[in-house]
């Protein structure tokens, strides 16, 4: 099952690689002249052109690009002077930690809320949920993030300043997993863990708020459908406890469409995380890409797009596997 599903992801990955390659070639201007700098002689530019393989045909360049990719070589960043792959590897944990916390928060609120609204249609909870789902879809994330900063940091002083993963004077936990939350726990440093968690509050809330609306809407709709089904009626008629009917019969079946929407929510979440990283000076790969854009340094941007796409493909794979866990019938069909 896993192997076969992995195989179906391959055309997608090939498409992603082709697109990132083409994006690189769409770069305005002459990359060789750009790399050589303004004071370069024509010979120097020609030399760089040869070195970068820009004098070859497009298919040849593509083969070279694939070869570099296979070696894990994504080019060099002009801004940091480091290989892009190393830069991305150093920053990816920060992005993943944030995205994961945001998703977790959204699920923790959206699922109960959706269930609650579906079991009490027409009630106050239901109306609040529907309002939330409509409003949530209309919120510009970059604006809600700033409002949270203003209210929770400036006005109330509850949150620390929105400047990165840790306050400047703090020492980072020893890198084991890359997630500061886990690493600080592994280092048995509760004070550090709290400091890390505090920095995470605002960005996590911003991301969570963004992902809340679609999950709530879907959970509510799916639960409503399932609760009206024959098998739920049968389970009730057989005198099963309401709790058993709700969680064992209804919720598990309602999770299928919710998990399907999760793919779209993740696409949205990964995009939004870039904006959130910018607002909170979060040292993730999104902020890294944006810094590079400002310096017209394209290799990091290309590496970033590729990384995000690969992460997204992997997450979709995970969702499919999850689908099989929730609904064993899926396995038989495929």
């Amino acid at each position, binding site marked *: 099952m896993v192997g076969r599903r992995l195989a179906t992801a391959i055309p997608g990955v090939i498409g992603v690689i*082709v*697109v*990132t390659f083409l*994006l690189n070639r769409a770069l305005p201007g002459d990359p060789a002249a750009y790399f050589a700098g303004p004071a370069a002689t024509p010979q120097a530019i020609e030399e760089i052109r040869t070195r970068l393989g820009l004098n070859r045909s497009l298919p040849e360049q593509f083969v070279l690009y694939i070869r570099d990719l296979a070696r894990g070589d994504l080019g060099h960043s002009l801004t940091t002077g480091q290989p892009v792959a190393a830069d991305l590897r150093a920053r990816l944990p920060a992005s993943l930690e944030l995205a994961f916390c945001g998703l977790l928060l959204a699920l923790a609120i959206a699922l109960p809320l959706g269930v609650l609204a579906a079991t009490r249609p027409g009630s106050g909870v239901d109306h609040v949920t529907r309002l939330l789902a409509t409003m949530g879809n209309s919120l510009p994330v*970059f604006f809600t993030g700033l409002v949270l900063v203003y209210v929770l940091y400036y006005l109330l002083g509850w949150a620390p300043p929105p400047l990165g993963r840790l306050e400047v004077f703090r020492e980072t936990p020893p890198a084991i997993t890359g997630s500061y939350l886990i690493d600080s726990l592994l280092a048995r440093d509760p004070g550090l863990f709290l400091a890390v968690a505090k920095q995470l509050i605002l960005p996590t809330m911003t991301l969570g708020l963004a992902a809340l609306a679609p999950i709530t809407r879907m959970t509510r709709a799916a639960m409503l459908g399932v609760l009206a089904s024959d098998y739920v009626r049968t389970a009730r008629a057989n005198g099963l406890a309401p709790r058993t009917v709700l969680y064992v019969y209804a919720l598990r079946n309602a999770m299928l469409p919710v998990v399907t929407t999760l793919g779209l929510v993740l*696409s*949205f979440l990964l995009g939004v995380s870039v904006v959130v990283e910018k607002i909170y000076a979060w040292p993730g790969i999104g902020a890294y890409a*944006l810094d590079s854009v400002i310096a017209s340094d394209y290799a990091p*941007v290309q590496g970033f797009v590729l990384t995000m*796409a690969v992460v997204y493909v992997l997450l979709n794979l995970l969702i499919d596997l999850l689908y099989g866990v929730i609904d064993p019938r899926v396995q038989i069909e495929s």
Partner: protein
Amino acid sequence: MSTAVLRMARAGRYVVLGNPLTFGAFLMLAGLVTLALFGHWIAPYDPLATAVGPRLAPPSTTHWFGTDHLGRDILSRVIVATRLDLLIAISAVTLSFAAGSAAGASAGFYGGWTERIVTRIVDTIMAFPLFVLAMGIMAAVGTSVMNIVLTVALINFPSYARIARAEVNVRRNAGYVEAARLAGNTPRRILAVHIYPNCLPTLIVQASMNMGWAILSAAGLSFIGLGVRPPTAEWGIMVSDGSAFMMSGEWWVSTFPGIALMLAVLSFNLMGDGLRDLIDPRRRS
């Protein structure tokens, strides 16, 4: 035809008056369109002129929404930005509607290679987190209004293509299509005249639901510096201009353009919900 239009208008009146939210959204949209058309005359100050007031002055009677760090009048900038923001979103949605529905309809109708190619393109675009793809494209092709429109259109292309393909596929072998074929219509004519118009309602609902997202994507790109360039008045840039001041308490620089953006997106979304109830009552929530 005219009776159909009349019936549609009556149903539209029913939905608009029957659902106060849709009615409110309709009024807000009318207001936005007015601002987009006449904003340049309504705005009290030149939106680009610096130092028309003191720098970073809070809202007052002379500057209702306050002034930004260059002493520009925020109210004027918010008003004038309406045209650009709406124009980008409408052009992008129109483009992806046209291209996506044409490609999707051909794929669903002809099948074979056409279908394979369209599906491959759609799948490739969908393999990316869409906003990330938009970032990558904008960074590569450079920022201009034209490029924003094309990029936002491209990332919305899959949703139209998929819907059109599914809708056409369902109707491909319908009785009236069979009849049209027997009457000697060419395949192209059958698709364009007999099938495609029947798919329009679903596509139009999708377009109206899509408008809000198109506005958000374009403004989001401008916010991160990959869209419209300063000093142009655009909501996303204006929010970005004020982002640093949120930490020091000058809330008005970001808040007013942010609220404008939110209201615009909200009214398009509510309008989309209302339209969906009108056209496709089964999906009513």
